[in-house]
């Protein structure tokens, strides 16, 4: 029995079509590598993060008080069903950086040493690894702080600071100018009076989130009943601990959207290449079928090489994913989060999504196209007649249209499916390039906007001690409150009082939206800073809020208390131009009345200059330009590298698509090109016909699709902001960015066209004469 000699074609096919298979391989392997690298890093690091709760014995919560607890206090507090651990801290700083230092933790919130060693002597410090990376600090360096010089002996991850939030109420963490660190006990003692912070662990772990919240509420009341609390932060509300897990989980969703977009592109490429292969080999197929080959044998034959390429791409892609790409993606996480070391875990989910689904899809699409195409009558193959009707209508073209134009139009009509794929590819790749290039611009514009249009140059939020809210010591609380308001009266002439309240926007599971903090500002009726008419109970929202949720005058918003189910609905009377945060404006009287805060209550000042005449103890946060742009600066650090990857990836998509499609068009017309040469057309003229047709269509599609891409980008960006991020960044796409996208696209196209020009000049003249396909 003779073995099927068609097998011998496979290697030769690979050699002849090396370029085509290579670009498909590059696109598949890089997609699988990139996405599986990201998913594997995500899963591995999420696992390390989740395990860190047990491994490093992360606290169930913490609280701070004004003085050190004595043994009796501790005994009483521990009788509430918790065990408490000293976790005092203080800050060392210089003009640019602040480091919150702790003593080494032995029992709770343990430290992961990632490089170097823990401090041994008094002038040594171990600092957060991410902060060190972002500031190019290495072990052995000396930090010059106001409190003295500190030699960095080690880089660490503190398990209760996986996201470096200096203040739990901050919108974003800050790994550029804020760090945590460990010093020796002696050094700690010498640095002054610490914040008396205590971590606690429950004796009996809460059953679920609801139980955790109820337990925390009860505990807070009980502790506050014994000793006035300065702060109380249960684990679930502690952003420094919880933010990382939530954010890493939502990254996965984003990357999966990317994967599905890649799959669509791959699907089209597979369909076009399979169809082109059949077109190219029509008469051979006709002869083989006429000779007795079955369609099944031919389907298997034409499926083999794409299958091999898919298989090899999958293997290489996964190897890349688990090695190089995983490390790159893990580094991206390490540049955002202070995570402990992780062990790579095998992710069946990543494998199925990145490898099995695209491979199965590839098989099915090829199978479908091959079965569909091979189902034609044998006669059609022999006559190289793809559509069934001999009487297919030909679109008449006016003879006054110049010959070359008519010729190009015919090429266009012949290759409409390929050009449709090109359009989808352009949309896809441009979206990536647009986003990659626009991201730094979005951040820059936001910073400019914050500089030019702040709510007020300084917003000073007062810190009301938790001790004021002692239900069982009402008299003491009232006296303390009076004293507090006495202490926080400022003489600053520019200062204007306001009140504020924090609510959460109502979650919307349909949009993966968990709700986010919305600040309700109660402002003066004749505010110098916010020129709004808030009389007659008028309500306004910031433009950031309006843009994000498409709100306008007459819209209503639903807000809720963060920790219970009390809802508030507001009708909007207008939008106030402010992009810094999601906020609502009303009169101070209305706000105080609504939230039962007392008629003259205020929680802070708007001012032109920094308020210096209030004790720092009573100042919670000062929101100035630096604070407002913390988010954008951090995002630039966290995602800057990622954006470069996105642009490179888009260029790969571009080159692959253009190469495969131009090649398909030239291959489909090889015989005509050969005939053109025989007739005396020069390579340049033939290129004008075949390459220039694609060039013209490419340029037209590229430019005409831009408005659609900008529109889709805005939609996706809004979705991303709603699903993933607090706050709002206005997305504008400048002309410069559009020009850059067009230039990148044209350069990618130009590079491929040179290869295609060479291909055209190499099509031999005997192709048409010898009938060799």
């Amino acid at each position, binding site marked *: 029995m*003779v073995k099927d000699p*068609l097998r011998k074609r496979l290697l030769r096919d690979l050699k002849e079509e090396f370029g085509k298979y290579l670009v498909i391989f590059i696109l598949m392997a890089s997609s699988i590598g990139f996405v599986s690298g990201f998913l594997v890093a995500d899963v591995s690091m999420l696992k390390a993060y989740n395990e860190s709760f047990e491994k490093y014995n992360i606290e169930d919560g913490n609280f701070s008080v004004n003085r050190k607890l004595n043994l009796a206090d501790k005994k009483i507090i521990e009788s509430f069903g918790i065990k408490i651990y000293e976790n005092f801290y203080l800050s060392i700083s210089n003009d640019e950086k602040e480091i919150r230092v702790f003593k080494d933790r032995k029992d709770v919130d343990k430290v992961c040493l990632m490089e170097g060693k823990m401090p041994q002597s008094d002038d040594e410090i171990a600092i957060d690894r991410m902060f060190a990376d972002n500031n190019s600090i290495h072990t052995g360096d000396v930090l010059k702080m106001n409190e003295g010089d500190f030699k960095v002996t080690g880089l660490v991850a503190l398990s209760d600071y996986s996201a470096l939030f200096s203040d739990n109420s901050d919108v974003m963490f800050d790994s550029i100018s804020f760090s945590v660190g460990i010093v020796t006990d002696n050094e700690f003692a010498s640095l002054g009076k610490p914040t008396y912070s205590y971590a606690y662990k429950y004796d009996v772990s809460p059953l679920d989130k609801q139980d955790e919240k109820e337990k925390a509420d009860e505990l807070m009341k009980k502790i506050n009943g014994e000793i006035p609390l300065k702060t109380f932060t249960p684990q679930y509300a502690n952003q420094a601990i919880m933010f990382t897990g939530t954010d890493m989980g939502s990254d996965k969703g984003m990357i999966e959207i990317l994967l599905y977009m890649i799959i669509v592109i791959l699907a089209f490429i597979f369909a076009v290449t399979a169809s082109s292969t059949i077109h190219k080999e029509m008469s051979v197929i006709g002869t083989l079928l*006429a*000779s007795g080959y079955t369609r099944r044998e031919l389907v298997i034959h034409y499926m083999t090489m794409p299958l091999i390429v898919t298989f090899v791409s999958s293997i290489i892609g996964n190897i890349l994913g688990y090695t190089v790409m995983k490390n790159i993606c893990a580094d991206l996480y390490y540049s955002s989060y202070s995570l402990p070391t992780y062990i790579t875990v095998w992710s069946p989910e990543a494998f199925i999504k990145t490898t099995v689904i695209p491979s199965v899809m590839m098989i099915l699409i090829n199978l479908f196209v091959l079965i569909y195409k091979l189902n034609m009558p044998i006669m059609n193959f022999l006559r190289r007649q793809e559509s069934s009707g001999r009487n297919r209508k030909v679109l008449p073209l006016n003879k006054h249209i110049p010959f070359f134009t008519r010729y190009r139009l015919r090429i266009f009509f012949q290759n409409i499916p390929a050009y449709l794929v090109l359009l989808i590819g352009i949309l896809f790749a441009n979206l990536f390039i647009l986003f990659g290039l626009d991201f730094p611009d979005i951040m820059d514009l936001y910073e400019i906007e914050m500089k030019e249009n702040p709510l007020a140059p300084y917003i000073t939020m007062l810190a009301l001690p938790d001790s004021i809210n002692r239900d069982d010591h009402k008299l003491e609380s009232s006296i303390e409150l009076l004293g507090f308001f006495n202490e926080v009266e400022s003489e600053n002439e520019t200062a204007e009082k306001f009140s504020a309240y924090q609510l959460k926007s109502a979650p919307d599971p349909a949009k993966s939206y968990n709700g986010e903090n919305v600040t309700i500002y109660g402002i003066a009726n004749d505010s110098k800073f916010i020129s709004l008419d808030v009389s007659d109970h008028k309500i306004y929202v910031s433009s950031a809020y309006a843009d994000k949720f498409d709100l306008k005058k007459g819209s209503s918003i639903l807000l809720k208390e963060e920790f219970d189910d009390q809802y508030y609905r507001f009708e909007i009377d207008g939008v106030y131009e402010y992009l810094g945060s999601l906020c609502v404006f009303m009169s101070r009287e209305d706000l105080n009345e609504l939230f039962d805060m007392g008629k003259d209550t205020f929680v802070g000042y708007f001012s032109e200059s920094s308020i210096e005449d209030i004790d720092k103890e009573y100042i919670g946060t000062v929101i100035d330009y630096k604070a407002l742009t913390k988010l954008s600066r951090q995002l630039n650090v966290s995602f800057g590298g990622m954006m470069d990857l996105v642009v490179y990836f888009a260029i790969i998509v571009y080159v692959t698509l253009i190469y495969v499609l131009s090649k398909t068009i030239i291959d489909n017309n090889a015989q005509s090109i050969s005939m053109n040469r025989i007739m005396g057309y020069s390579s340049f003229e033939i290129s004008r016909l075949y390459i220039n047709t694609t060039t013209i269509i490419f340029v037209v599609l590229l430019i005409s699709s831009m408005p659609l891409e900008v529109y889709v980008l805005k939609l996706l960006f809004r979705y991303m902001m709603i699903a993933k991020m607090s706050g709002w960044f206005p997305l504008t796409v400048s002309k410069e960015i559009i020009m850059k996208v067009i230039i990148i696209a044209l350069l990618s196209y130009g590079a491929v066209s040179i290869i295609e020009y060479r291909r055209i000049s190499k099509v031999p003249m005997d192709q048409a004469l010898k*009938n060799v396909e």
Partner: protein
Amino acid sequence: MFLELKNIRKSYGEKDYRTEVLKGIDLEIEKGEFAVLLGPSGSGKSTLLNIIGGIDEADEGTITINGHILKSLSKKELEKYRRNHLGYIFQMYNLIPNLTVRENIETGAFLSRDPLEIDPLIDVLGLKEHQHKLPNQLSGGQQQRTSIGRAIVKNPDLLLCDEPTGALDYTTSKEIMKLIETVNQTYRTTIIMVTHNDAFKGLADHVIRLRDGQIRKSYYNDTKIKAEDLEW
């Protein structure tokens, strides 16, 4: 009777575009016979050949080959019929470009349960020196010889040839005809050859002349001339 055609009719197109290509063909061909279908362009020769080969379908009429009625065969059985009993040679050689001469012939051998020996066949075809060349390294005649090799290596009962010399020069055409003659004589293969070259009628046992979709003349040669003596 090895092959019997009864009232074969075939039209292409619809309504105003409808053209009747075959207008009721009746024909009988004996086993081992060398039949030549002659006629001008558009007379329906190739269509008739393709219908006999089962790659095109008649609108009306029946074809019986070796006792099998083609119409009654399922798609799969028809495929099997072509695989086991038919060899095809086209004017255009339709060789697989990235398989060598030998491998192209092997594609035919693969289909047969009882293929001819490949080496002697390559000798007969005069392709010994070229067997490891790719099609684009061959002349037109060598390519056609390869396609003949591919068709006959499976030792078919019926060899259908559609203008096998249509794209070849005089000398090469003569060589190809000699080869077809040899196949007929050596392997007792029934051959139906479509041609518009009148000179080939002398080679055949049975000459069928078509015009406007009808058989105008059908006769048997008492004496045949040899391919090498052909002149035109």
